[in-house]
């Protein structure tokens, strides 16, 4: 989406100071316990044209329990940064017009936890690894088979790193099965083997917002006998993947937990820690010329159910790995669902909705190409037709 340059610049400064700043920056360090993500975009109150076409802002995601004095300190900090960025530009307006505090929980991954059964599924095959004798892997977990990838004449299944590989804790060659022990006592057939993943680099301690991980993805080499999920699959790489995401983009996905859902990709460039079961990892937004191509935030599209407008969750546990695509033009791929957060009203603290975090396909393509020692153009992505 077209993000004003000053919003991009302010977001970079704020993220740098809060997540990567040194102890001498006491003002920013004091905010770190309460600010858990920074992004650029909009969080539309409704699906009206007016809301969806608002100008993008710097979004600071703060703990819902932050005290008023803490919120005031955050507000003052951001206001000062924006004042400096605006400088002498008298046409820019007030700094208050360029940022928004979002009361939201920390982002958690949306792979299925042991004991959590998806309420239903209409599409999107479940997928997981088969490694019952690796005692450092959860015995029961669940994700979604996101897309098909071809590279060098080989067929692969694409999903999240934290679904298929656990950052290498499932070794290369680990069988990949569907649907898995959460739904099938016999585990289900082997459809491939883990082939590659984009390694996640762990942050040093104390946490300082480094290193920047850009994508959460892994691929499994498809067993030659398995092709049921991809009948009729079509290429989502042509035209070229959106880079960066234009406007407030209407998107859809098919996930194992929540089936087909629709949303608005209205936020980009998240700087955020994600807590996986194997540790916390920092995902950093690209800066400079590549601004706008970072992690994407999606909110569900409002629906009228029994006369009441609600905004259902775009994704839920079990949807990790689900492919998100744009509903515009030739429906190019956007990314893979990987995590979600909850938003709260800043006054009543009442729960107001969900934000799903999507790992961008551009970064996935680049990361896998690097890991597989291939040019990015060698990797093509396909998705199955929507079941609806």
């Amino acid at each position, binding site marked *: 989406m077209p993000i004003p340059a000053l919003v991009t610049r302010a977001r970079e400064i704020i993220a740098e100071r809060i997540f990567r700043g040194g102890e001498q920056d006491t003002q920013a360090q004091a905010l770190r316990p309460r600010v858990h993500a920074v992004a650029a975009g909009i969080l539309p109150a409704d699906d009206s044209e007016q809301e969806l076409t608002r100008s993008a802002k710097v979004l600071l995601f703060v703990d819902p329990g932050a005290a008023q004095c803490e919120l005031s300190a955050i507000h003052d900090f951001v206001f000062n940064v924006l004042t400096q960025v605006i400088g002498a530009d008298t046409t820019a307006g007030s700094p208050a017009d360029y940022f928004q505090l979002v009361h939201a929980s920390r982002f958690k991954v949306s792979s299925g936890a042991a004991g959590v059964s998806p309420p239903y599924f209409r599409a999107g095959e479940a997928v997981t690894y088969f490694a019952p004798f690796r005692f*450092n892997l959860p015995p029961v977990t669940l994700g979604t088979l996101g897309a098909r990838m071809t590279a060098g004449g080989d067929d692969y299944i694409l999903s999240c790193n934290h679904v298929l590989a656990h950052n290498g804790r499932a070794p290369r060659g680990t069988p990949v099965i569907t649907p898995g022990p959460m739904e099938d006592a016999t585990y289900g057939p082997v459809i491939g083997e883990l082939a590659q993943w984009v390694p996640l680099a762990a942050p040093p301690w104390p946490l300082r917002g480094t290193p920047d991980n850009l994508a959460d993805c892994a691929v499994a080499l498809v067993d030659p006998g398995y092709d049921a999920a991809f009948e009729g699959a079509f290429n989502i790489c042509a035209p070229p993947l959106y880079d960066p995401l234009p406007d407030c983009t209407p998107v859809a996905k098919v996930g194992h937990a929540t089936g087909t859902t629709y949303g608005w990709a209205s936020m980009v460039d998240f700087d955020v820690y994600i807590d996986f079961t194997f540790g916390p990892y920092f995902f950093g937004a690209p800066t400079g010329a590549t601004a706008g191509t970072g992690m994407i935030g999606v909110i569900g599209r409002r629906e009228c159910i029994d006369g009441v407008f609600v905004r259902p969750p775009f994704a839920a546990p079990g949807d990790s790995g689900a492919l998100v695509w744009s509903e515009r033009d030739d429906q190019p791929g956007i990314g893979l669902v990987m995590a979600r957060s909850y938003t709260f009203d800043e006054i009543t603290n009442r729960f107001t909705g969900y934000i799903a975090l999507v790992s961008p396909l551009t970064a996935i393509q680049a990361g896998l190409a690097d890991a597989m020692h291939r040019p990015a153009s060698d990797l093509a992505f396909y998705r199955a037709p929507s079941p609806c």
Partner: protein
Amino acid sequence: MPGSLYVFLHGLGVACDRGPYIQIVLPRVPGHCYRAGGWLSETLIAGDRILALKGATTDGKVSFSDPSIADFMISLPDSSVTDRARAATIILPRAQTIIPALVARHDPHVARTKDGSREFPKLATVQILVYTYTDENEVSLDGHYWEPAAIGGAITLHIISTSETPEGQAHEDMTDDIMGEVLRGYPGLVYFSPRPQVPPWLDPGDLGPLHISDQPGLGQYAVSTDSAGNEQLAFPLAELEHPTSRALRLSHLAHLEQSDRPIDSLWQDPDFLSERIANCVISGTH
């Protein structure tokens, strides 16, 4: 990525050397819970399991029979372990070092054998075995599902073998009887009354090769120092807390949330003073 692994032993156990390994027997005592895993995410150990720590370096030489460590535990060299009354058996490599923490001290003794032949003036209520590892993806506790999560290269594994609620004399008497089943030649133990105080986890005193580092705005951590003089995280001090008082602390969390008070200060709020050292500590034998 290489790093350090800290294995915390909380509660009742019997340690003995088995060549290059340490065998820890967890006695089956009614009312005890047996858990293993990451801090605050330990899960129940299935009955009668043998769990083996894998992925930790095996060139360590320290065990509980080292005199410097044996001074901080119930040392019963004339007893031997049987295969009876076991809840679980843990096999660990010999460690790089063992840190006896939260040590109760009293002269003439914190505990003694019933016949008075042995006195134990110092007892550690938590024992920390320190290892290194080269690949965190290979660290596992075989026989028990546990996902190691490294922070700054430091992984902690907690093994719990004690009650999560305060216990009285009847329970301690039963524990002593069961120890008589676990150990052949068990002499029985008597604890000094009133029980000597254990240092609080907030102010644990000597932590061997580790020291306490204050991280502004975050809390206190036990850290080590590498060859370049940089601090390396070991664990937050709150991980030292005894499982019984930790369970009470987490019940505060419910009260805080129910009464709309901030939960930030969960590890800084006052504690009520009704806990004492129990007889659930590590004993060493053959």
